């Protein structure tokens, strides 16, 4: 079987996902095409040097609709002969794009892909593409749909994470992210976003709050208590699925949940022959990929079965993994992951994560995989696993090995 390798990984800085965020003025097409152009430039590839662009994107509406991947290809330095494929696995879209590209290569369908994702959350609001899962009674009622925040609180309740636990995790994320930036650990990957004149618009992750401490987080009100307990009462819906719990403890808030940001990321994935043809050195091998479905009500526990599945696919055990990137959608998601596998926080999200730096939905999978690769190289370790929880009860995971 042909192996798939990562030749390059890069990302944009993440801008606050609000009208006053630095990237709010940048279109999805401009942000995305800058990533594609940077990949081409850094590897000195011709415009027709790849098979396809696979682009993850969670809210495919408005400027992100109409197959943004194709639109972005047309706006980039790539040839029109490269098509472009938009995919949606919500928060894991970026990782799924990489996995798809890798598996295409392994299956012999082309020698190289650019895979990644984008989400301009300040410009295209989450949920603005509609979602039958939340409103169609044949699904929403039958499968006990609740918003993600309720699911995150349900995880905390069911698996016993207190407010102090989830806040403590968030403080650590901020501290680690601040340290990682201070030490320049993201230097290789972060590509500043520029305007049409080449002027820099943003060159750092804008949403971080490095001074965050327990006292500051302790002052925040739980964000999902009202929709849970009062109108329209999502807690009851969750309890219909988990009747053994008396009530949901609401512990999550803006400070221990992932930030809403704008951002994009891209990777160059190719076969060994591709690298040889273009004189490129592979950085890591994509060892195994996995995707799973799980209970849509608790929704965000997918990293556990996804990890079990990807380990099985790789023929590995949890102890074989040196470093983990588990997307910080909410504190409880990562706490549950560490609890389920009994892995030490010292091996998980060592550069901080989405709680500190933000979670541009469709891009995050490619971002954390890139961070994992950078960190394996920096620390001289060899094997890493990246995984994300996914809306509607899904999960995705990837194992990479540094060469």
């Amino acid at each position, binding site marked *: 079987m042909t192996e798939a390798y990562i030749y390059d990984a890069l990302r944009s800085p993440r801008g606050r996902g609000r009208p006053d965020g630095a990237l709010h003025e940048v279109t999805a097409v401009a942000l995305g095409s800058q990533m594609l152009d940077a990949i081409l430039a850094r590897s000195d590839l011709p415009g027709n040097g790849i098979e396809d662009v696979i682009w993850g994107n969670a809210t495919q509406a408005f400027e992100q609709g109409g197959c943004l991947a194709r639109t972005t290809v047309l706006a980039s330095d790539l040839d029109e002969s490269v098509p472009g494929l938009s995919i949606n696995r919500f928060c894991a879209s970026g990782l799924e794009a990489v996995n798809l590209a890798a598996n295409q290569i392994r299956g012999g369908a082309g020698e190289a892909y650019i895979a990644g994702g984008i989400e301009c959350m300040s410009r295209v609001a989450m*949920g*603005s593409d*509609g979602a039958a899962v*939340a*409103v*169609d*009674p*044949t699904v*929403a*009622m*039958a499968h*006990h*749909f*609740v*918003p993600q925040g309720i699911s995150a609180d349900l995880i905390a309740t069911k698996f016993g994470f207190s407010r102090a636990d989830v806040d403590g995790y968030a403080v650590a994320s901020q501290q680690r992210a601040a340290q990682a930036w201070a030490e320049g650990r993201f230097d290789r990957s972060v590509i500043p976003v520029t305007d049409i004149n080449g002027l820099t618009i943003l060159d750092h992750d804008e949403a971080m709050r490095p001074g965050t401490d327990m006292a500051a987080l302790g002052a925040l009100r739980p964000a999902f208590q009202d929709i849970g307990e009062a*109108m*329209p*009462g*999502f807690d*009851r*819906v969750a*309890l*219909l699925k988990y*009747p*053994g*719990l*008396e*009530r949901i403890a609401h512990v999550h808030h803006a400070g221990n949940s992932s930030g809403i940001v704008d951002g994009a990321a891209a990777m160059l994935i190719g076969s060994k022959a591709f690298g040889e043809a273009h004189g490129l050195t592979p950085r890591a091998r994509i060892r195994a990929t996995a995707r799973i479905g799980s209970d849509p009500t608790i929704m965000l526990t997918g990293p556990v079965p996804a990890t079990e599945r990807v380990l099985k696919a790789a023929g590995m055990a949890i102890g074989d993994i040196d470093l983990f990137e588990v997307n910080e959608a909410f504190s409880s998601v990562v706490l549950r992951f560490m609890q389920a596998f009994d892995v030490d926080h010292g091996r998980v999200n060592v550069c901080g994560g989405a709680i500190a730096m933000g979670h541009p939905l469709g891009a995050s999978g490619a971002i954390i995989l890139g961070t994992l690769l950078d960190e394996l190289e920096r620390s001289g370790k060899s094997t890493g696993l990246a995984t994300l929880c996914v809306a509607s009860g899904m999960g995705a995971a990837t194992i990479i090995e540094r060469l």
Partner: protein
Amino acid sequence: MTDFTMLTDAAGVATITWDVPGRSMNVLTLEGAEQLRRLFETALEDRAVRGIVITSGKDSFAGGMDLSVLATMQAEGPEATFEGIMAMHRLLRLIERAGMDPKTLKGGKAVAAALPGTALGIGLELPLACHRIFAADRPDAKIGLPEIQVGLFPGAGGTTRLVRKLGVMGASPFLLQGKLSDPKAAQAAGLIDAVVADPLAAARDWVLQAAEGDLVKPWDARGYKVPGGAPYSPQGFPTFVGANAMIAGQTWGAYPAPKALLSAVYEGLMVPFDTALKIEARWFTHVLMDPSASAMIRSLFLDKEALEKGANRPALPEARVRQLGVLGAGMMGAGIALVAARAGIAVTLIDQDQGAADKGKAYTQAYLEKGVKLGKTSEAQMQEVLDRITATTDYAALSQADLVIEAVFEDPKVKAEVTARACAVLGPEATFASNTSTLPISELARASTDPARFIGIHFFSPVEKMALVEIIRGKDTGDAAVARALDFVRQIRKTPIVVNDARFFYANRCIIPYLNEGARMVTEGISPALVEHAARMLGFPVGPLQLIDETSITLALKIAGATKAAMGAAYPADLAAVDALMERMAGEGRLGRKAGAGFYDYDARGKRQGLWSGLVPEGKGRPDPDLHEVQHRLMFVQVLEAVRALEEGVLLDVREGDVGAILGWGFAPWSGGPFSWLDLLGTPFAAETCDRLEAAHGPRFACPALLREKARRGGRFRTAMAEAAA
């Protein structure tokens, strides 16, 4: 039979009058619908007709669909049902368009509905298809769509039209709760257009002067947008997300009809009106085919009505109560006095001292004052009711009473004393009743001068709210006493069941094991939350632990003590753990809600907080069983008591068993009652489940011979809805 007639006057107004012969209220049959269609087509074709008015020849407009139509449709299957519903849509759409060109929206004749009074179900759906609705100014008239209460939803366009008229939020109380309004409230809510002294005259005037634009329904006009937004509009999206959660939360997911209703609304709002009607018909068909809907219609409508009309009344002359005596002015006595006085009966309310008797009467005053405050009762009406109640200590005041009900302390001695005192002054035709909930009627009857005239009339608490009355026939109770009790229950507009005398009669016989099973599961280490949620998800209004708190641990211990004394060695050994838990709780002062602590904690105002953390021993160390296991235990433990009551001849009619369970203790209404539920499960599966539960949990789940016999032949306890309707 001619249900509809038409007369056209000189001004060109065709008045179609609905007047079903031999019925006090109109109901729609297929034949009636066909008559209406023909008359309407004639009016449309007749050039002399300028406008059409649809009204009723009765003092109400209509009570709804003839349930036998639904029963027949249900029996004929989904295809016939769908076609039948679509035919109804075509008729109502014919009325709504009234000859208008659907493209240009030109032409057509004005159609108005004139409602002389109550308009329910199809009785409102038909007017909703007209261009204007005029209702008489009668505060006693009820207007609305109550279908959801019998397990259906408005399926003759009422759902689709009301949502398009009022928006999802505006329509939801009428569709989802079946809220009924008086004409003024209905007008304020936008259900109808005008409340007038003479709706027929107003409707005639209106059709003669209506402009072309008045005939175009908003949903037929170009550029129509549903108020509050369609599902995928920025405004509508959160509404629909919330609606799913609210319905699931309010119904605990137990009822099929609200889900189907919301699907019809959601899917219907994304397509044109006529397609939406088709979708509504598909979902209505789906719900009508759900066994839960037929069971609910059968028990909550057909059976309930039959029992109220005296299905099991001895064939004796009417024995209405003009004067009622109530002994004991505590909560039950005061409640009985209230409902009787409101029904026009003169009440003598007796207690040991005048203060207590007055306090009992004050209960009625407080109740009525609330009605006055809400504008539902006038001061004069309140005074009239209060004047009917005489609060006294004097037993001589009972001499003219037709019926005396004692509601004194649950102590045979006290009861015997008041019985003797009352019997001393009662006339030879008077009936004496005990409101006991636990003591055997045949024994209490010994204190009476004539046990044939002694009967049990068991009210549920609170009397003014609970619809069921359990009539207990003692060993010597005569037919005349039964007839009298049934006539009295009819007067106070409650639903009676008649059972024979045995420990705890029918209702409490089934409730007590339900409470015990809940407590027993806690002693086994099962999460109390799972026990409570399992019950709520079965459609019970309160979980067993909450119910114990409401009725108090003191009462639970008292019942256990009395049962032990009565049964001796036969007292079930498997109750020991339950009794021990109750004693432990009593020992810690956790006596229930009134004590401020029980299975739940309560705040200072008596508001329930959460389950008591001391209930489950630390580290119980075993995972909870499957939800269905808990639910089966809670259901079977009650249902098997019902079957045994039937076997033993305590219960004589399965209809009474089903209706009594739903109205008496809120037994899973979606199931149609305990016997309907066994049929829903299928008796063979029910018997197998009993065997499994017996093996796992003990002899209380042993399959009764009657159920075993039914299971062997694949038999049922209940007949099909179509037979019940016939």
